[in-house]
């Protein structure tokens, strides 16, 4: 038995924001009361901390199978735990691609053996993520996928996307899309604008994202499917989402901490830890993301944790793979940039990290209630700390936030009643 005492419990699902003790027995929440005394229970002193329903990251690349040089389920989930996440969605662009039930089952089996947080696999939308025909989505659903996506290899073909949406609507699965129009992406390596012009780096225009966002909203309206738009980065993309939501389209979206924090002008000395896809956008885009997070257009914060081996990343900017790691800095950035600046409340922060991600996937989690699985994220909004990437639990080091100071830190991560991470 574990007794969490003295914490501020924030559970948006039950509209609770008050001091509560939480008693956990057999991996489940057995009591939530103002004061609980329990002889024999292990006591966790949560005074000064927020106790939230376990965070779920909708967008993580665990790289296993096939990319274990950069990350594994073991190391990726440890990084997740250190960032306050109790569950992650693993993207299907592994080797082999998670496009069939056998791969899904093997990922889940590895996650049970080596993972410290819950892993929800996302299946490939098309076979091999090749963008030609549908993968075996129903079989993967039975094996345990929670959504489909061709993340990393965006679905350029509108007819295929419509087919994926039609099918997933009947299966009750959300379709996640990395919105990117290949002909506009070209050989781009950063946001197209004054800064790419100055640096002489090939640009990726905002329209490259905004065209498929609009297309996806139109197709979701036509098919009735639930489309979840991954890591949106531009002002125009959010405008389309806002409009589609007003019209009742089943569209949700996520934004990453690096996109709501950094801008193209922050790219320094051609350092590849600033290279990711979608790229860091312009100041007006970054500001629009902050606004969208505050006004509710954005449903979730997801990291797009994309580990790459240091050798792969320590090359010329043009040649470096896209992606940054983000699991351990997400909460610090969100508290610093969103809560401490007064843009959102702590309740809204918990919604973005926990309540909404669970809802987007239709999972019965992301709430603190008696009998629910005891997945909890404990954080201290005032705790000051410095991120040192060399101390990361991840195998990779590709973070633009090395050496950043944060106010607000994950303190303990509890999965099924077990403390799997505790800040020293």
């Amino acid at each position: 038995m574990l007794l969490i005492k003295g914490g501020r419990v924030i559970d948006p699902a039950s509209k609770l924001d008050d001091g509560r003790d939480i008693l956990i027995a057999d991996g489940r929440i057995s009591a939530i009361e103002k004061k609980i005394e329990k002889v024999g229970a292990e006591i966790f002193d949560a005074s000064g901390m927020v106790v939230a329903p376990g965070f779920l990251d909708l967008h993580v690349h665990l790289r296993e199978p096939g990319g274990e040089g950069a990350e594994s389920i073991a190391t990726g989930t440890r990084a997740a735990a250190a960032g306050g996440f109790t569950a992650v969605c693993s993207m299907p662009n592994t080797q082999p691609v998670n496009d069939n039930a056998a791969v899904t089952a093997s990922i889940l089996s590895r996650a049970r053996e080596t993972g410290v947080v819950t892993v929800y696999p996302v299946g490939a939308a098309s076979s091999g993520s090749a963008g030609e025909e549908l993968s075996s989505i129903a079989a993967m659903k039975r094996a345990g996928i929670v959504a489909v996506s061709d993340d990393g290899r965006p679905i350029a073909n509108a007819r295929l996307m419509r087919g994926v949406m039609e099918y997933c609507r009947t299966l009750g699965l959300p379709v996640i899309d990395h919105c990117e129009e290949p002909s506009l992406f070209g050989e781009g390596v950063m946001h197209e604008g004054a800064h790419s012009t100055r640096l002489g780096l090939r640009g990726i225009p905002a329209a490259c994202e905004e065209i498929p966002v609009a297309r996806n909203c139109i197709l979701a309206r036509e098919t009735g499917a639930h489309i979840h738009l991954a890591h949106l980065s531009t002002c125009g993309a959010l405008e389309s989402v806002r409009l589609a939501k007003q019209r009742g389209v089943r569209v949700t979206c996520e934004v990453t901490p690096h996109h709501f924090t950094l801008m193209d002008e922050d790219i320094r000395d051609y350092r590849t830890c600033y290279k990711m896809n979608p790229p860091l956008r312009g100041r007006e885009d970054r500001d629009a993301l902050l606004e969208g997070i505050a006004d509710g257009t954005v449903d979730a914060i997801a990291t797009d944790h994309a580990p790459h081996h240091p050798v792969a990343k320590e090359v010329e900017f043009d040649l470096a793979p896209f992606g940054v790691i983000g699991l351990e800095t997400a909460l610090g950035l969100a508290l610093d940039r969103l809560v401490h600046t007064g843009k959102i409340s702590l309740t809204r922060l918990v919604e973005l990290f926990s309540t909404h991600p669970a809802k987007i996937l239709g999972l019965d989690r992301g709430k603190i209630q008696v009998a629910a699985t005891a997945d909890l994220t404990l954080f201290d909004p005032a705790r000051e700390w410095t991120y040192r990437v060399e101390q990361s639990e991840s195998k990779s080091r590709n973070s633009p936030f090395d050496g950043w100071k944060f106010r607000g830190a994950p303190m303990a991560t509890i999965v099924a009643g077990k403390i799997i991470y505790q800040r020293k």
Partner: protein
Amino acid sequence: MPAARLSCRHLFGIEPLSIEELELILDTAKSFQKVHEQPLKKLATLRGKTVLLAFFEASTRTMTSFSLAAQRLGADVIPFVSSGSSVSKGESLTDTLLTLEALKPDGLVLRHAASGSPEFVARHLKIPVINAGDGLHEHPTQALLDALTIRDHKARLTGLKVAIVGDVQHSRVARSNVHLLAKFGSQVTLCGPPSWLPPFFASLAPNVRLSHRLDEALTDADVVMALRVQSERRAGDIFPVDEYAREFQLTRSRLKRAKPDAIIMHPGPMNRGLEIDSEVADGTQSVVLEQVTNGLAVRMALLFLLLGSTHAAD
């Protein structure tokens, strides 16, 4: 007043340099111009020094110019030319250069197709790095030799009207020239079809104008610079070359709009009949060959300033 010395031990581009530093380089280059006229052209200034020339993009001209500049200063050169990317051979750029650095050169001249590669490489090497052209980013020695040529003819770099015409988007020469001329307070008009001249260039530096009409760009120009149409880099380009030749080629009749004493420049190699008409290229206003000669002086100046003993002492 020219600076007493350069503040950075590398030359990454024109953008980070101050006017005083640019003047120092140009004045030093000026003093080296005379060397080429002497019967014995070799100095002993960099005797005992070794310059590594690493060219990962084909460029006979810049390579020859740097090589001769180093040798005229008495330095030895290690030429290293690699046509394809080093990655295709399984060796990373850093490994290639660390291997070459083990031969103990005193400086590296780098030409590479990736923008920012000089900055990247400098983080891994101990020796000064001179950018001889990086991707679409900068080609600082080209802008400096252009500036020396302009100054020789116009006696100043301030208050001039300069038209740069061509595929600006893919031109590191244009970027470096814009930075340099804007620092000195000249007004640069960039000209080309919209596909080759995105609106973002207007914010590259102060006093930059964009024009999609050649006649407008050439009006009252003191200096007209044609950029090379890089047919080798045209994969994916949607603007037709013959349309460009009709609408943007520098011809004698179009150049009537420029000032009568305007000089005509080209970084070479020229595509005669494409971006420039032969009559103009060979005409009295053309300074194309002077540019080449001045390239030598400018590169000598930089090697002297960055590898010379005064700088090596600290």
